[in-house]
């Protein structure tokens, strides 16, 4: 596979601004949970580069992203509205309020591994539709080391390889599936190593190096666009925070381990690269972080202003063509609960 051109200064600065925005949004979301603005959240602290670097490479006008529930960084990188995204964590609507058909970002998925097959089906659809001038549209399936234990993930990889579906299996190996470490989760120690068994190429990258992730994703996209079939990227990273705002990592890992992991902070790595390679000044970094803070504050205001959806929507979206029984239940609900 051909190596794409490394990120230039403009790209790298844009990546940093994205990383900073995602860091601010993510850490703010934990505060919002503590403040009672949202009932729960699954932090991605430490995984910013894996998410931003890959999301940045995607063309959301043609490609399609299949996330789980920890992909705020990808969503932000491809331009999903952050209030509409965070609506899932505010318990407004399970799938969030953004439109998945227009954003090309599938609804937030609670069953890990569940959406990996959806990515393969969508990608097979691109194969049936045929390539455009610039090759196939590509599905990106995000999942983790924990999800890699699911049978659906095996079925997805096998289907994709048999059908040569243009899909990137993007594995964020963050060391932990809630309380279970990778060595108790992934026999053999590497998800990427499994790709060979499916006759599929794989790339293993430092998931905390945003340029490495970007380049690997671009390489994988080129592979898929050209009809090479599926490919797997394993981004090795670390979940610095808890699994969710209800989790207590102190019960299963040591502070020493967390502090050691903090030494490979993806933002710090990107900042160091910008300083040494391009001499980017302090003011740029301060500006990026300030912009991120301002964005997070705007999202907080948006979330606080987000009213609950009307109860009638429980009934509205079950079917495209609602059934008489459901209409009757909706009518009864209106009479007895809304007193109309």
């Amino acid at each position, binding site marked *: 596979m051909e190596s794409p051109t490394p990120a230039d200064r403009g790209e790298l600065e844009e990546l940093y601004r994205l990383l900073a925005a995602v860091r601010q949004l993510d850490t703010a979301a934990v505060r919002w949970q503590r403040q009672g603005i949202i009932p729960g959240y699954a932090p991605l602290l430490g995984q910013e580069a894996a998410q931003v670097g890959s999301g940045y490479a995607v063309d959301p006008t043609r490609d399609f992203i299949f996330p789980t529930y920890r992909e705020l960084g990808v969503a932000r990188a491809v331009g999903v509205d952050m209030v509409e995204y965070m609506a899932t964590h505010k318990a407004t609507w399970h*799938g969030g309020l953004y439109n998945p*058909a227009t954003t090309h970002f599938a*609804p937030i998925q609670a069953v890990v591994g569940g959406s990996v*097959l959806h990515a393969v*089906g969508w990608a097979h659809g691109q194969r049936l539709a045929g390539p455009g001038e610039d090759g196939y549209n590509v599905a990106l399936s995000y999942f983790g080391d924990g999800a890699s234990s699911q049978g659906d993930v095996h079925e997805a990889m096998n289907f994709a390889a048999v059908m040569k579906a243009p899909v990137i299996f993007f594995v964020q190996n963050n060391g932990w599936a809630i309380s279970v470490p990778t060595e108790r989760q992934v026999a053999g120690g590497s998800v990427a190593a499994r790709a060979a068994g499916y006759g599929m190429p794989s790339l293993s990258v430092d998931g905390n190096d945003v340029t490495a992730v970007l380049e690997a994703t671009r390489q994988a996209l080129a592979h898929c666009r050209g009809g090479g079939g599926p490919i797997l990227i394993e981004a090795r990273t670390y979940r610095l925070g808890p699994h969710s705002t209800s989790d207590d990592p102190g019960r299963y890992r040591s502070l020493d381990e967390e502090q050691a992991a903090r030494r490979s902070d993806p933002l710090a790595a990107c900042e160091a690269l910008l300083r040494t390679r391009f001499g980017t000044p302090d003011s740029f970094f301060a500006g990026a972080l300030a912009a991120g803070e301002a964005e997070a504050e705007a999202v907080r205001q948006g979330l606080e202003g987000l009213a609950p959806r009307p109860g009638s929507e429980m009934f509205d979206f*079950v079917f495209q063509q609602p059934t008489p029984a459901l209409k009757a239940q909706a009518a009864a609900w209106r009479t007895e609960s809304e007193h109309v």
Partner: protein
Amino acid sequence: MSETLSSPLSPAAGDGPAASAPLTLSMQGALNRALGEVLEDNPKALIFGEDVGRLGGVFRITDGLQARFGAERVFDTPLAESGILGMSVGLAMAGFHPIPEVQFDGFAYPAVNQIVSQIGRMNYRSRGALPMPVTLRVPSFGGIRAPELHGESLESLFVHVPGLKVVSPADPHQAYHLLRLAGSMPDPVIFMEPKARYWQKGPVDPADAGALEGARIARPGRHLTLIAWGAMVARCLQVAELAAEDGIEVEVLDLRWLSPIDADGLAESASRTRRAVVVHEAPRSSGLGAEIAALVTERCFNTLKAPVERVTGFDVPYPSGDLEDEYIPNIDRILFGIQRVLEHRRG
């Protein structure tokens, strides 16, 4: 193929089938014909599953379709039901109308997450932005002396899932028209084919579907309503014939749609006959018969002369072929059910 399409009733039989001529088809032939027409009508319709391509399916329901429509529209998948159904979600998101086959009812169990948590919910989760026009064909129910997990009755499992519609045809005409309808619907439909009835022939009028919504009266009667679906409809018609010899006029209601259930149709019939017996192959407890009994009772309590009776399978795993005639409601057990209802006296 040709033997399933020719018909002695059709004046055009010698010249190949005319679209408007009544035909005599097996249910297999009717389903096959319907699938071909769905694929013709909708270029986005795709058929896939295990052995549905070159082989034409283990029941030959997709016979000849790959040759006719090509291996892109009718294709074999690897042997994995969750994969087949999960892939359907993505294909629907990409604008296709998937018509997957699960080879046997019991093989739907490995795909429950994709059917229940994904196909049944994606329209809801996405607030209507990602419709799931998935028509899942499931050869269903018992009666063919098949191995374990090749003769399950999954309707109670599926009808309890919001977001799924469930239908089961009783004869070739119903099979043809209901599959054509299901294959054009924008919502997920579980299409439960009574495999014991695949090879019985019957009239199919392609030009006159009749009403396809709700239940249908398969045989009118005035003393009692027998409610059934799938393969049990034919058995109930036999029972009605026998009961008629004793002067008992049994109405047979073919429920057809198991979700949504035609509560009005049930009530209309039961309020006329004032007695109802529901017959199903599935285990008794919390089976669909319980829901039907509740619906009939809610709507007809004052006119009913007896509690709604259930004649069903037992709360046991589906038995081996040697015992399946003991398990599936047979003529005697249905007649006993009728007798209990007719002899009921209010205390």
